[in-house]
C-alpha cells in the first residue's frame, strides 16, 4: 500500500487530538436528560482509540483546542480535518475511521442516537 505522507499524518494527529479533547469535555450525567450527549461522547471516546491506532507510538494526544465546546461541532471539525489531504496519503484504516465518524455525525443530526 501507499506510504502515508507527513502532512496527512499531521492532519490525522490533529483529528485525533480533537477527538481526545472532546472525550474530556464534561457532559451532564443525568441519564433521562443527558442520554444523547452521554452516548455521543461514548462514541467519541471509542473513536479516539480507533484514530490513535493509526498513528505512530508515543505521539501526545493532548494539544488541540476544539473550535467549539459542542461535541457534535467538534466531531464535524474532525471530519473536515480528514478532508484536507487525499485519502491515499493517510495511513491504512483511515477510510474505516471516516465512515465511523460520519455515522456518528449522521445519527446525531438525525436525532437517532437515543
Amino acid at each position, binding site marked *: 500500500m501507499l506510504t502515508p505522507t507527513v502532512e496527512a499524518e499531521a492532519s490525522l494527529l490533529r483529528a485525533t487530538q480533537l477527538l481526545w479533547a472532546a472525550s474530556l469535555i464534561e457532559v451532564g450525567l443525568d441519564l433521562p436528560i443527558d442520554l444523547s450527549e452521554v452516548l455521543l461522547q461514548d462514541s467519541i471516546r471509542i473513536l479516539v482509540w480507533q484514530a490513535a491506532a493509526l498513528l505512530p507510538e508515543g505521539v501526545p494526544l493532548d494539544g488541540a483546542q476544539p473550535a467549539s465546546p459542542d461535541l457534535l461541532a467538534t466531531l464535524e471539525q474532525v471530519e473536515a480535518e480528514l478532508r484536507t489531504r487525499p485519502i491515499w496519503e493517510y495511513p491504512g484504516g483511515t477510510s474505516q475511521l471516516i465512515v465511523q465518524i*460520519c455515522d456518528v455525525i449522521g445519527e446525531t443530526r438525525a436525532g437517532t442516537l437515543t
Partner: protein
Amino acid sequence: MTNPTTPLITAADDWARSILLDSYTNPHTDQLVQGWAQVMRSAAQTWDAVPGGPTWQSVNVPGGYPFRSVTAAATQIAADATWWQHSPPDPRAAQITNLFDHAADSIQKLRDGVPPTDGQLQQAAELRAGLLHVSYVLTHAAATGTARTAAQLSEDDPARSEQVSMLNTRILGVEQILDAHLRRAPYPSVPPTQIDALDQTLNTLARHAYEVQSRANPATNLVLADIGRDLTGNTGRLAIQSTVQGRLPVGDLQDRLLPALGEAVQQWTASRYTWVRLMGPRQDRPDPQSVTIGNQLRRQLRAPGLADHPAIHASMTIALNITTELAVLNHCALTNPDLQAPGGSVGRFTQDVINSGPNRWNHLTNWYASGPAAGPNPVPLPEALRGHLAQQGQATLDAALTARSAGNVLADRSGYQTLALHQGQSGAKPHGRPEAPSRDRPGPDAPRIG
C-alpha cells in the same frame, strides 16, 4: 509529477461523504441504491483502466479485481429491488460516476508495453486507493439507508421490510468485500442476524477482558471503562425504546432501571477519569483488540430495528451481566498492588486526593516523608492514592451490581411472556406482570435456600 486524477477522486470523496452523512435522514433510499449500483459499475471500469501488465501490478498498486464481484452483486441487488427499478439514481451518485469516468479517461493515456515511470505507478496506486475508499463510503451509505428503510417499513409493510432487509444484508456483503480490500488484516465477518452478532460480540468482550486484564495498561483499562459506560448507556436507550413500544412498564423504567443505570454511568465516568489521571503525557496505547470490540459493539448496539427484536431484553440482560464483570475487572485493576503510573501523574493525582480527603495532615506528612513522585518514569502508588482508587473501584462495582439487579425487570417480562406462550394464554394484558412474590412464591430477588 502532478496526478491529474487527484482532484477528481477528492471531489468524488466529498460527494460520497455527503451522501453518507445524510443517509440517516434521506427519504430516497430507492435513488441511493440505484445510484450506488451505477457508481460500482463505473468504479469497476475505472479500476480496469489501469494497465494490467505485470510491470504495473507492482507492490504499491492495489491489485486483484475487487470490483468484478462487487459490480455483479450491486447490479443484481439493484435489479432485485424491482419496486425501485424506475427510480432515478441519486444525482450526487451520478456526479461520482462522472468523476470516475473522467479519471478513467485520464489513466487510459498510460499504456502497457512501455515500462511505467515511478510517477505513473504512483498515479495508478493513488487512483485505485481512492476508488476503493469512495466505493466503501458509498456502500456504507447504501447499507445504512436500506437498514433504516427496512426498520421503518416493519410495521406498515412487513413483507416489503423483509425484502429491503435482505437487500441490506447483501449490501453489507459488498461492504465487507471492499473493507477487506482496504485493510491488510482480515475484518470480522458479518454474522447472520443483528442480535446474534451482538450476543457474539458481548461474549467475545467478556472472554477478551479476562484475557487482557493481566497485561492491561491504564489506556486499556480506560477503554474497558468506556465500553462499560457505553453498554450501560445503550441499555438505557434500548429500555426507553422498549417502554415506548409497550414492552416494558413505564414504572419499571423510571423508578428502577433508569436511576440504577444513571448511577452506573456516573461511576464509570469517575473510573475512566481515574484512569485518565494515571496516564502519562505520552500515553501508552490501549490493547487494539479491546478497541476493535468496543467499536463493533457500538455499531451493533445502534443497528436499526435492534430494539424491536423479541430477544432484545435477553441481550440487554447479558450486557448488564458483562458490564458487571467489567466492573469486577476494573476493581481488580484499581486495587492491583503492582499498579504503577508515571511519577508526575502520580504526584499531581496524590496531591489532589489528599487535599480533598479526610486526615489531610497525616497523609500529607507521610507523603512528603516518602518523597513526592515526579517525572515520566513509572512509580508505585502511595497509600493515600491507593485508598482512593480502591474506593472508586468499589463504587463502580456497586453501581454495576445495582444496575444488573435492576435489570431483573427485563428478565421478568421475557420470562412471563415465555410462560404465557407455553401455557397458550392469549390476550395477555399490556404491561402484564407476574403475580407479586409471596411467602409461597418468592420473586426473583428473594434469597433461595438450599
